């Protein structure tokens, strides 16, 4: 809220305006140079042929045609979506269960459990990818394969097989982010008034009914938030597969993601035009995915309201 101020202070109002513009200017100046200009330049580059050194030449939609006709692009988009779903969807279910448990009044060592579940989130993605890279190494003696063998299953070539690589990467994404989502759901659960449960219990509602008619509907905004973050994050997956696969990251396609495809075009193949076209396509995909998310969740929200009344 701005101050209410009388006419005689007008000169001070002008001073305030100058101060305000001055205070917000650092962000806008930096944004203009390293945010807006590069974004616009990317849109421009997407229609140029350029190797980063010589002259640019206008090629129309050629870069987009090249990318969209490249089977490796479609493979990387497929990989991104599959790993995104496998890595993030289970987090919603497990995260809600964990948060529900951590919110129980009778629970002992609550803070200890909460800190333990959250611990993976503080490690960097590079660290996670390296540790899981050893856990899921392609050796027969890898710990992951040892565990599979214990259950009578065959060893998997985790870094070179179609599903092995995807599953390993999804597991590391799941492991690192589950604590984050749990904490958000926990905040959501704590915002639900206790007397709602009290009233439901008096009316004879079972735990499952409470979960179905109180917890889930009131938790919906928090679920929407995490789904949004997860979707955008999953579409930008880069660090985990790149570090996990190491030297073969850009030469194999089992786990190549869209951002890796973009990176490879620009910085390994010196094709900045198609790289930028890929960036523009990625922007388009993210906007569409976010819009679908918003559309679906606003529908769900409406239903939630209907249930309450």
């Amino acid at each position: 809220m701005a101050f209410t101020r009388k006419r005689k202070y007008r000169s001070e109002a002008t001073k305030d305006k100058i101060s305000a513009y001055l205070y917000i200017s650092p962000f806008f100046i930096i944004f203009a140079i390293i945010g807006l200009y590069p974004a616009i330049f990317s849109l421009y580059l997407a229609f140029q042929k350029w190797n980063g050194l010589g002259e640019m030449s206008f090629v129309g939609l050629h870069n987009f045609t090249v990318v969209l006709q490249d089977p490796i692009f479609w493979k990387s988009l497929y990989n991104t979506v599959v790993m995104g779903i496998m890595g993030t969807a289970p987090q919603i279910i497990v995260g809600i269960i964990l948060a529900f448990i951590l919110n129980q009044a009778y629970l002992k060592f609550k803070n200890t459990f909460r800190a333990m579940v959250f611990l993976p989130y503080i490690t960097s993605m590079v660290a996670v990818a390296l540790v899981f890279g050893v856990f899921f190494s392609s050796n027969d003696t890898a710990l992951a394969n040892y565990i599979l063998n214990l259950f009578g299953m065959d060893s998997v070539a985790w870094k070179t097989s179609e599903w092995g690589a995807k599953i390993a990467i999804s597991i590391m994404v799941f492991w690192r982010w589950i604590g984050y989502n749990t904490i958000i759901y926990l905040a959501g659960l704590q915002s639900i008034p206790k007397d709602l449960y009290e009233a439901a219990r008096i009316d004879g509602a079972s735990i499952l009914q409470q979960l179905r008619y109180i917890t889930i509907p009131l938790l919906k905004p928090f679920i929407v938030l995490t789904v949004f973050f997860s979707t955008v994050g999953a579409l930008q997956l880069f660090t985990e597969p790149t570090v996990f696969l190491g030297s073969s990251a850009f030469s194999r396609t089992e786990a190549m993601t869209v951002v890796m495809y973009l990176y490879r075009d620009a910085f390994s193949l010196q094709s900045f035009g198609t790289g930028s076209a890929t960036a523009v396509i990625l922007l388009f995909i993210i906007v569409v995915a976010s819009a679908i998310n918003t559309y679906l969740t606003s529908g769900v929200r409406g239903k939630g309201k209907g249930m309450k009344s």
Partner: protein
Amino acid sequence: MIKNFKLGRFFVYLFLIVAAFLSVFPFYWMFVMATRPSAAYNSIPPTLTPGDQLVENFQKVLEKIPFFGAMFNTLIMCLVVTLVVLLISSLAGFAFAKFKFPGKNILFVSILLTMIIPPQLGLIPQYYLVAKFGLLDTLFGAMVIFFLNPLGIFLMRQYISQSVSDELIEAAKLDGCSNFRIFRSIVLPIILPAFATLGIIVFTATWGEFLWQFTVLRDPDMYTIQVALSSMNTTSNVDFGMILSGVFWATIPLVIVFLMFNKLFIASITEGSVK
């Protein structure tokens, strides 16, 4: 009935213990492998107790990558980015919370909209820009794009409009305080808790950044710790003991800080995303 109840609690604790074990085990296993020769990795059954190669493995890390230099670079980068973001965000947050000026709402919404732009969209021109100014392989080049933090402005505006009263500012004005003096002497002391929250968010996010540094840093002496760690895994014949030793020593400082301030960390997540 009571028996059922107890059984339910038993499964609740079992589920929690399994989840906590799975969360913590990789840390323990990382420590075990950091103390074992690489060959221990091939033993069946797997090695699950610490060995005596803790120092040897770390020496191999030091031979392979400039570990301490990279940690130092990362620390400097995170500190500078955090301070710059706190300064930019609190100033802009103050303006958006307490001043009236034309275009305020449009400008604020446009800041929020910049959050939607995926960082990869500008990657190529940003690289080109940084290269043109001779900032490749410099720490400044590695940190400059993280000065942009729309979320920080959003959080600061929320916090300032809730916790700094208009009367207080009005009174300071009547005493003849300049706007900047008000910011420094009145607003800053009040928003220190918000600095802790935003500082943790920015510091940990910058610490973990990879793609940008991987793109602009090619000289091993300028590596941040993430790029240095990842560079251990680029040869086909890798020494697992060495890799996990490097990861272990790069991770342990964060774990210690987290265990000391874990409530603050967890609060920063909920405040940073739920509000």
